[in-house]
């Protein structure tokens, strides 16, 4: 039985620009002692996933549902007070991103480490302090540190304090939210070694949130790749790191500059999408090198891409001249040919252009049909749905990945 089984977790925020789909239907399961690394670029929803699991929600939550089974119990059914008392920190604790900010500057660190004991088990102050000393020792800190204030400690020491704090109640799952991103390389290695050690001795389950694939590989048994609020690929580290299924995972791996290989890193063109209006279909299709008709180009995206193509110098002579374009529906658009071109002429030119460059300009693959009207040309695009996440042990959400291949 998995320690933690997350099913279709959803967390949307309300903002002035519209709803933000920070976490969109995420599922994964974690066995005891297993570590999942959630990897993604900034804004991909990694931290929101952690917050959603611990139910640490901001005030502007729009939608929050799904199932989180912890130790066989669906904790989403608990009231806030029950959740606070039984799950938070007792069952699932967290190591925060910026350790220097996660500690109260005005309180001695010993008290901060011991505080959960007093809050959750009503342990006497002195006894809690004793236990805190044990945990501090376990994470490799000297005992006298308990009486110091956070600003008197170095970054690495503070991070150890935060780890001690997360361990004090002996939780089953610890969420590590970028635990080393603010630390130096050496300190980072020391912390990772500590976490590795704790994982092996205490059989802890980690949810390791990071943007660094190299770091992820240090701890991960499972890897989950997040993109624009979705978990697009999740599978065993041995597989995902070696033969990624999703094109995005592949590109992400290729973008890591490696110290032990001469292979030049490559970048992913474009930028992650705006989560207030995620693209239809597969959310990665705009940047995907292998996108094709099913990936979900919308008429508006098509127009934007066409505009870009027109304005960028290189393809200028090849693009048939266009006077204007307008979206008619999400999957069809009207193109008015440029000044002196007739409609039929234009259709021909366009078809030729598509045939010639669709490998390079993948969005052209989304054209289902081109029809000449009286004054304009109607371009119909393929209709499509977001790709389902397929597979069992190793799943990916891409039309190019089929169940059989898994």
């Amino acid at each position, binding site marked *: 039985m998995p320690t933690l089984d997350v099913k279709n977790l959803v967390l949307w925020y309300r903002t002035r620009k519209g709803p933000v789909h920070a976490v969109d239907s995420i599922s994964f399961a974690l066995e005891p002692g297993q570590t999942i690394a959630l990897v993604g670029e900034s804004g991909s929803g990694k931290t929101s996933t952690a917050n959603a699991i*611990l139910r*640490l929600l901001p*005030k502007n939550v729009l939608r929050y549902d799904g199932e989180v089974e912890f130790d066989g119990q669906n904790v989403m059914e608990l009231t806030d007070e029950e959740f*606070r*008392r039984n799950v*938070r*920190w*007792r069952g699932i*604790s*967290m190591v*925060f*991103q*910026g350790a220097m*900010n*996660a*500690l*109260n*500057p*005005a*309180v001695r660190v010993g008290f901060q480490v011991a*505080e*959960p004991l*007093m*809050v*959750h088990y009503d342990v*006497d*102050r002195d006894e809690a302090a004793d236990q805190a000393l044990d945990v501090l020792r376990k994470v490799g800190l000297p005992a006298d540190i308990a009486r110091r*204030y956070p*600003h*008197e400690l170095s970054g690495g020491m503070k991070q150890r304090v*935060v780890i001690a*704090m997360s361990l004090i109640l002996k939780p089953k799952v610890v969420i590590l939210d970028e635990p080393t991103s603010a630390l130096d390389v050496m300190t980072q290695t020391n912390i990772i070694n500590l976490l590795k050690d704790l994982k092996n001795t205490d059989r802890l389950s980690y949810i390791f949130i990071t943007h660094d694939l190299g770091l992820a590989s240090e701890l991960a048994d499972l890897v989950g790749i997040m993109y624009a609020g979705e978990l697009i690929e999740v599978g065993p580290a041995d597989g995902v790191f070696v033969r990624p299924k999703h094109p995005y995972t592949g590109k992400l791996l290729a973008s890591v500059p490696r110290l032990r290989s001469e292979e030049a890193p490559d970048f992913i063109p474009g930028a992650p999408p705006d989560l207030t209006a995620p693209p239809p279909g597969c959310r990665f299709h705009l940047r995907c090198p292998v996108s094709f008709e099913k990936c979900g180009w919308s008429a508006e995206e098509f127009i934007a891409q066409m505009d870009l193509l027109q304005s960028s110098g290189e393809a200028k002579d090849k693009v048939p001249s266009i006077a204007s374009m307008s979206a008619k529906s999400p999957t069809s658009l009207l193109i008015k040919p440029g000044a002196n071109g007739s409609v039929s002429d234009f259709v021909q030119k366009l078809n030729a252009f598509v045939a010639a460059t669709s490998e390079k300009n993948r969005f052209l693959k989304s054209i289902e049909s081109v029809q000449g009207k009286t004054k304009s040309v109607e371009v119909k695009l393929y209709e499509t749905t977001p790709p389902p996440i397929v597979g069992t042990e190793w799943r990916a959400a891409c039309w190019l990945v089929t169940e059989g291949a898994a």
Partner: protein
Amino acid sequence: MGVVWHLAKRAIFLVITFILAIYATVVIANGGGRVDQILKDQIYTDLKQQYARNPAFQRLPPQEQARQFNISYNSIIEAQGLNEPFFQKSFRYTFNALQLNLGRATQLHSSDLSMRVSDIIFERLPRSLVLFTVANVVAAVFGIWLGLWMARKALSAFDRGMTVLSVTTFVVPPWVYGILFILIFAYVFKVFPAGGLTSVPPLPPSPLILAFPPLIAAGLLGAGYVVYARLRSKYRLVGFGILGAGAALLLVWGLVLPADYFKDMEWHMILPAAAVAFSVFGSWSYTTRNLVLQVMDEDFVFAARAKGLKERDVLSRYVLRAASPPIVTSLALTLAAAWTGAIITETVFQYPGLGLLFYEAISLFDAPVVIGLTTVYALLLVVTVFLLDVTYSLLDPRIKALRR
């Protein structure tokens, strides 16, 4: 050690500033020798009248009269040092003021008919202190409580409404509220007296320490609550003890002590205190709300919540504690302004404290009293600022550690 050294430096600085401020006051007050001229005129007329009532003097020939008059006039001027050069005089005035040797009033007197300026001032000082301390403490406690509540309900209708109320009330000084409050509560509804210190003819003043119990009780209640809520388990009893002591004191004060004089005084204090509190609470609540909201965004507050602390504990132990040093500093000006703002508030309420004394002194042109009062105000400001410094350094452990 660090804190003591820091505070000592501040104290030295404040003393120097105080001396400079007094000197500035003396210079302004005596600018162009106006006050000296006024004093000389006064001596002149007094002397004239004195001689006019003296039949022996009247019998002297006019020349002799003039000579004698001049001799006594000049000797008085000499004795009071009025013909020294101003530069020299200004130092003497400053030195006198610093020693609280404020001279004699020309017209005003205390209730036991003393004309010494310090007697007059120290008769009035406790009244002002009591009124404004009570009002400011009430406003601060209420304002901070409201601000916390607003921050908790941030962006709700309650928060928006209260924020606008806070912002719009704190720009208006207490005396304007005083006018409106008297209009409403004293003349329309007739529930509170319009002003004055007491309604009965003033009884001989009892030891003023009796007026402080409510204050001390309030302090005890506050401290008790802090000890009870902030520290856990074994300190709870101590907290309870302090709370109990405060409550007992309040009970004794309210029930056992049948001091009509003070009760009447309190009855008269309600409206002015309410006006002061109403004009001050908004800045406490607005500042508290904003700072608390700011701190609530901090990671360590998030962490506290993640640790499973109750929302109430998060607010009191993490948020308020972190927000308190800036709350204290940002309100330094408010508090300091309250002292001098008393001049008009007390005038409106006819409350015979320092403020009304100032007004009376201006109306009667009693220069020594005016200068003396200005000195006392400067002293009050210095003490307030220093107390704020002390509070600040006690509240922020970072100062303690960094200055070590």
